[in-house]
């Protein structure tokens, strides 16, 4: 298995969406249309289930866990823009979560600015930071970029932990900032129940997946693809690879910061060790990698599978076997890297395709008969 194939997965998905996957294999147009329709039906069913979930699942604990699952799916998909499509290894993405969370929280606590505006501002600041990190390091070996992201994340965390006041802004160092649960309402991004949060993160997740899908089929997607594997060839063709990567980095930083604000408004308490931690950055990267970076469905699938493992192993084994979920992550990660470098989405997609294929055959036969 060569490295070429990692970046191919993105392109394969794009081609498949355009319906070219079976080109040349002699399958009739009818069957292709049937399969397209089936794919659409499947997506519709998933959407109905997702939007209808809060009507079935009433327990706040479960909703809480599912919301966090979507949260991580969102984070990993945003990470994927730079970690998957651009082919580098960012290991400090939590820094953007921190920037987003702190920006919106400080602005809303001290100046009463709506968290939604703070959210956008946090995103913009993150773009600057992301580009700042990317500019010098994208030209170097991947290892340097990875180390630089770690250094930035940790350096930022140390800074926030040590500063109580930055000029007029209250940062409160390690004690963190607590948001009092008053003023509920959409404009204040604060709700008593969990359902509104569920829908918000669901919509954010769908949005970010849509953005990823667009990119994968756009020129940018192809530039990144080419640049990841044969940068010299790409540059010879006139593609500015660095610029493409920086653009991807900017988008990834922006989107990740939005999630930071969501988290702050959801849990109402932020402090450096929890949101700017190396553990979080690594968890995002691990999930994306196990799920399958470079693909659209991979990160989401990874989150759906791995987050429950983490939560459940904490609940069941928390007092007898601490840290078990991290061991599981590590083992699964290594196994996936050795046997399925494109991530588990590869096998899962194949299974899905086979099922749809068989079903299409069945339906066609019934239709003909």
């Amino acid at each position, binding site marked *: *298995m*060569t*490295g070429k194939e990692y970046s191919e997965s993105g392109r394969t998905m794009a081609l498949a969406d355009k319906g070219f996957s079976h080109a040349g294999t002699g399958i009739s147009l009818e069957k292709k249309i049937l399969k397209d329709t089936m794919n659409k039906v499947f997506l519709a069913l998933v959407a109905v289930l997702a939007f209808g979930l809060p009507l079935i699942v009433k327990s706040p604990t479960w909703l809480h866990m599912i919301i966090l699952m979507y949260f991580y799916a969102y984070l990993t998909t945003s990470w994927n823009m730079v970690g998957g499509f651009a*082919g580098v*290894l960012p*290991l400090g993405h939590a820094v953007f979560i921190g920037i987003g969370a702190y920006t919106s929280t400080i602005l809303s606590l001290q100046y009463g600015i709506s968290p939604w505006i703070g959210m956008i501002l946090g995103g913009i600041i993150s773009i600057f930071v992301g580009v700042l990190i990317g500019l*010098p*390091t994208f*030209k*170097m*070996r*991947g*290892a*340097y970029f*990875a*180390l*630089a992201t*770690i*250094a*930035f994340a*940790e*350096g930022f965390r*140390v*800074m926030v*932990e*040590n500063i109580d006041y930055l000029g007029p802004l209250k940062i409160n160092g390690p004690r963190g900032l607590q948001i009092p649960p008053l003023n509920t309402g959409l404009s204040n991004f604060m709700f008593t129940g969990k359902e509104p949060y569920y829908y918000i993160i669901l919509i954010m997740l769908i949005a970010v997946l849509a953005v990823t899908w667009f990119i994968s089929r756009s020129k940018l997607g192809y530039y990144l693809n080419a640049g990841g594997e044969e940068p010299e060839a790409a540059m010879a063709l006139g593609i500015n690879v660095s610029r493409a990567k920086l653009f991807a980095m900017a988008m990834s930083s922006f989107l990740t910061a939005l999630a930071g604000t969501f988290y702050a408004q959801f849990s109402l308490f932020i402090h450096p060790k929890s949101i700017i931690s190396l553990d979080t950055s*690594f968890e995002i*990267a*691990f999930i994306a*990698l196990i799920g399958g970076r470079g693909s659209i469905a991979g990160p989401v699938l990874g989150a759906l599978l791995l987050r429950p493992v983490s939560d459940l192993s904490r609940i069941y084994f928390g007092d007898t*076997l*601490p*840290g*078990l979920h*991290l*061991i599981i*992550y*590590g*083992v699964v*990660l*290594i196994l996936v*890297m*050795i046997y399925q*470098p494109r991530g588990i989405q590869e096998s899962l997609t194949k299974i899905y395709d086979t099922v749809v294929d068989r079903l299409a055959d069945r339906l066609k036969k019934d239709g003909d008969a």
Partner: protein
Amino acid sequence: MIVCPGRPLPFRADHFCGLETQMMYVIEDAINGILMGSIYGLTALGLTIIFGVLKVVNFAHGSLLMVGMYVTFWTVSLTGLHPYVSLIFVIPIMYLFGYYLQDIVIKPIFKAEKNVREPLTVIIVTTGVWYILDNLTLLLFGPQYRSIQDNLLKGKMIEISDIFISVPKLWGFATAIVTAFGVFYFFQYTRMGRAIRATSLDRDAASLSGINQYKIYNMTFGIGTAVAGIAAVTLVPFYNIFPTVGVLFDIKGFIIVVLGGLGSIPGAIIGGIIVGLIESIGPQFMTATWTEGIVYGLFLLVLFVKPSGLFGVKYDW
């Protein structure tokens, strides 16, 4: 103008502390910085060796150090030997551990990515190893902080006219220098060492000369891990042992190795000393919590200004 240590800022004009005392303080701090720094350099030495040959950053290095510390701790506790004598056990155990870790876990990736210029997946896998080692240790041995009691080295100090020098750190310094020279000699002058260097420069040409590339990698990993074991032995006399002790040294290790230049042996030691000096002299002018930030800042500075570090070779970017 040096602010008088121990006095809260801002500098108070009514206070004066003699220039002599100031000089003594700086010398004392510098000595501590050099000693501690050389130990940091030793911890980073294995990392730089592995990178120099395999062209891979081993994120699990801190965990290997932690494993070395536990091995030393148990050896000393069970046999009552002097920590440095336990090197007899620690070095071979760590070498084999590293050798087989590379063979079983990392080699498959190398084989799979033969044609890729930069095996990023290996970095990912070493991160997985890091997590597994740290948490497995937590599971098996518990979160308690352990340390060796009452051994010959613990807590001893040399006093030279009011300047204190820590004995275990002095031993660490000596060990670091000896190990660095030993490793350097090995790579420059021995046949095995030269074979390893040949592989690092051009793996295909080396294999044409009959060198088994993968065996070389295994050996190098083993050597790097063994060096981590030596570093662990120097730390055990005065430091606490617990499952996540490796994380701090891991990150410091990366910083040192980038500072000194990936793959450079003198670079690792000197990089370590620089970090040690910042950590020792820095707190005299600001709180210890800020020196952490300065180290990161320096790291980023080097990364952006001269990524190849002080002694590093310019790679084909």
